[in-house]
């Protein structure tokens, strides 16, 4: 290997890291770095300078102290399932994997909580709690793989958020290692902590403010029973109306999901969930609680769905059928992956009432860009996942898919929504941040970052665009009469 400055730097850092970590947990060879080159958004790839795998919080601190002294940027990584490039390494930076901090430290059923290391998988928490009749509520579709640290960093949601909340609503305390290597405890053993609610600020901060080294999550009793209804509609607008009608009825479903024709067809072909493939859209509506309560509510849901124009309503007859109904929904992304060489998953949230308009516009854009789209929707909370189908090997298709995606996100902002409901900004949506936030808000975000990480070493270049970047982006995307950064120079 020729000795480029980069190699020298790498060797120097490796030597320092090996003073605090066992040698085998400091990776420097290309073949060892390769598995870390991207996260769940493989369109972006970089090899990191070096990968370190600390074993515990003390080693994370030691690593951070070295990075701080050496002024080398750090990207944290959980399972790498993130869909916005948040864990994408930096070529001149350290990739800090939390994979070895994977112990469940304590399940405390009497205080309804579990204390876990950040590399613990989401589903593993519920599995450890199950013998106590408890579970951890947020259930992202990636829950067999993604880590709780990654969930905190993205404020991950799942199909049960409407009733049980997001990650932020299910945390009790966090331990954080700062950019300087200091360890802070946030929250308390109770339901609140003294001072500012920093755990709210840290949740969803995408590894930009600190490294999460311990998480205390809230556990809930497993509901006695859950029942799901599947409703078919011949018109997607009727399905949208049905969602509003159920909520107007005073019912708060545990889950309320919608799939359009292309996505339900793909899911059916993949997992044979028993979906009616001639429907324009289906709704899955789950209620949970006591036996008596569930019987009462599912009957109301069924009636409401029929009144709203469902052509067919089925309720799962047993646990196996319920699991099948959900399997189709939970496998929607990979199912779409089977019918197209590549797909690009978007994540906007909109006020639900605008659903018909947004779907119509997405259909029109699909024509315009010449790319198919399938829609999966956390209908209860307005979080839309349009999946854009493309072929990365066909020249220009990736760029078209990205342009299409960008337009969808700007549409979400236009109707009063947001560019990301749960997948984060990462690198992917950094330009659309300029459409969502004016310069004053962006400046405050940078100021917050500086309060935690004055040297800007944690995941630099992600999540919050610089004002200059927005000026450039604005120059490309001037909307009539609405120039977001008029006072900044353009280049």
């Amino acid at each position, binding site marked *: 290997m020729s000795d480029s400055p980069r190699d020298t730097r790498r060797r120097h850092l490796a030597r320092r890291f090996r003073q605090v970590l066992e040698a085998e947990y400091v990776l420097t060879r290309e073949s060892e770095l390769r598995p870390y080159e991207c996260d769940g958004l493989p369109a972006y790839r970089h090899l990191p300078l070096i990968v370190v795998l600390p074993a515990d919080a003390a080693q994370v601190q030691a690593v951070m102290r070295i990075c701080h002294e050496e002024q080398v940027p750090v990207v944290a990584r959980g399972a790498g399932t993130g869909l916005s490039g948040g864990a994408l390494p930096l070529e001149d930076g350290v990739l800090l994997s939390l994979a070895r901090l994977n112990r469940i430290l304590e399940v*405390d*059923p*009497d*205080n*309804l909580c579990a204390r876990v290391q950040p590399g613990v998988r989401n589903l593993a928490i519920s599995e450890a709690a199950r013998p106590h*009749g408890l579970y951890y509520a947020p259930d992202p579709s990636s829950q067999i793989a993604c880590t709780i640290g990654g969930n905190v960093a*993205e*404020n991950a*949601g799942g199909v049960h958020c409407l009733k049980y*909340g*997001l990650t932020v*609503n299910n945390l009790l305390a966090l331990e954080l290692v*700062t950019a300087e290597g200091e*360890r*802070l*405890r946030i929250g308390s*053993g*109770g*339901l609140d*902590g*003294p*001072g*500012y*609610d*920093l755990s*709210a*600020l840290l*949740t969803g*901060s995408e590894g*930009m403010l600190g490294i999460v080294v311990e998480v205390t999550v809230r556990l809930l*009793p497993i509901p006695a029973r859950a029942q799901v209804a599947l409703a078919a509609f011949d018109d997607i607008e009727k399905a949208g109306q049905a969602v509003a009608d159920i*909520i107007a009825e005073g019912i*708060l479903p545990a889950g309320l999901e919608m799939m359009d024709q292309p996505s339900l067809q793909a899911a059916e072909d993949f997992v044979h969930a028993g979906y009616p493939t001639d429907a324009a859209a289906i709704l899955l509506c789950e209620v949970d*609680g*006591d036996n*008596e*309560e569930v019987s*009462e509510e599912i009957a109301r849901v069924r009636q409401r769905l029929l009144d709203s124009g469902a052509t067919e309503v089925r309720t799962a007859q047993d646990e196996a059928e319920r699991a099948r109904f959900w399997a189709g929904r939970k496998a929607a992304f990979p199912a779409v992956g089977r019918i197209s060489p590549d797909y690009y998953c978007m994540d906007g949230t909109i*006020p639900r*009432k605008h659903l018909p308009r947004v779907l119509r516009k997405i259909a029109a854009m699909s024509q315009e860009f010449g790319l198919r789209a399938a829609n999966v929707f956390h209908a209860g909370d*307005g979080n839309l996942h349009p999946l854009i189908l493309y072929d990365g090997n066909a020249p220009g298709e990736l760029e078209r898919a990205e342009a299409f995606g960008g337009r969808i996100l700007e549409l979400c902002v236009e109707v*009063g929504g947001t560019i*990301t409901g*749960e*997948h984060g900004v990462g690198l992917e*949506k950094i330009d659309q941040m300029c459409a*969502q*936030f004016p310069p*004053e*808000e*962006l400046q*405050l*975000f940078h*100021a*917050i*970052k*500086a*309060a935690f990480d004055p040297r800007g070493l944690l995941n630099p270049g992600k*999540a*919050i665009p610089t004002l200059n970047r927005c000026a450039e982006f604005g120059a490309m995307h001037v909307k009539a009469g609405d120039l977001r950064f008029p006072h900044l120079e353009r280049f």
Partner: protein
Amino acid sequence: MGDRTAELQERLREACAEGRPLRPVGGDSKAFHGNPVQAEPLPLAGHAGIVNYAPTELVLSARAGTPLEEVQAVLAGQGQQLPFDPPVFGPGATLGGAVASGLAGPGRPWSGAPRDVLLGVRMLDGRGQLLRFGGEVMKNVAGYDVSRLQAGALGTLGVLLEVSLKVLPRPACEQTLVLELEREQAQARMRELCRQPAPLRGACHHHGRLYLRLAGAGASVRAWRARIGGETLAEHNSFWQRLRDHRLDFFQTERTLWRLSLPPNTPRLACEQHSLPDWAGAQRWVISDTPAERLRAEVTRAGGHAEVFRRGSGEQAPFQALDPGLLALHRRLKERFDPRGILNPGRLFPV
């Protein structure tokens, strides 16, 4: 009544230019909460009105000075409610004050606090800049969650102008059960019930009685009432409201009232001679003359923190001191939002 943004912004800009401290005031019903602040009041009460309420979207947006009573009445008209059931300590309490104080009613362990339902804010920072974070949608991870950070910040990071909240349907059925039980047995019973999928929305122990509030579908409430037993309390709402608003006889005292926040199953602490456990044990109201330092040390050992909620005689600091690293971070954050330190200086932590 109406939109007074421009006027408020002007006052803030001036105060910032002159370095003059301000104390944002809603109904001034929680002035006792936190360190006293010597500052000119900035009244928000006239900046009022519900800006948007979409019952089927489960969202309400209102100006900060909107009276809580008004918000609650409008929601009740649609069979909905504010999930966090804010305490009311006096007439004129406003929505902005309820959010800024971060306080939640007896349903907190099940229905959350203001931070759990705060979807977005419009605010003025300490320079008088008008800023907007979050919005009216349920899920939003674009940028740092500056909105939720405002809940409980006691107006030290900004002046809330408008808040957007997730609202929820009122439960179809509510009942309160009363069981004659001593403290230790009551705690065991609460622990046991919290581990089961019971429709609990309140659990406290007061005067040798365990009070349990059940709320949910009728069938479920009836089934659990049969399972739990005890007497059914007539006028159950007024009990929980009196607990929430500190109107029970327990709270009528000139001595110091402490709020302990603890892991719910913590055994009774030595400082808890005169105590009312709420939130199934996670929040304990304690009337005590134990020296602050000793009390706090005991609570900290148990994994919690202690707050002087109402001061008796003596000069205790209201909030638990933050560890040095955390305090430094608080100060840096405060400085970013309010560089001249004019918003409620010292109310939450020493400047």
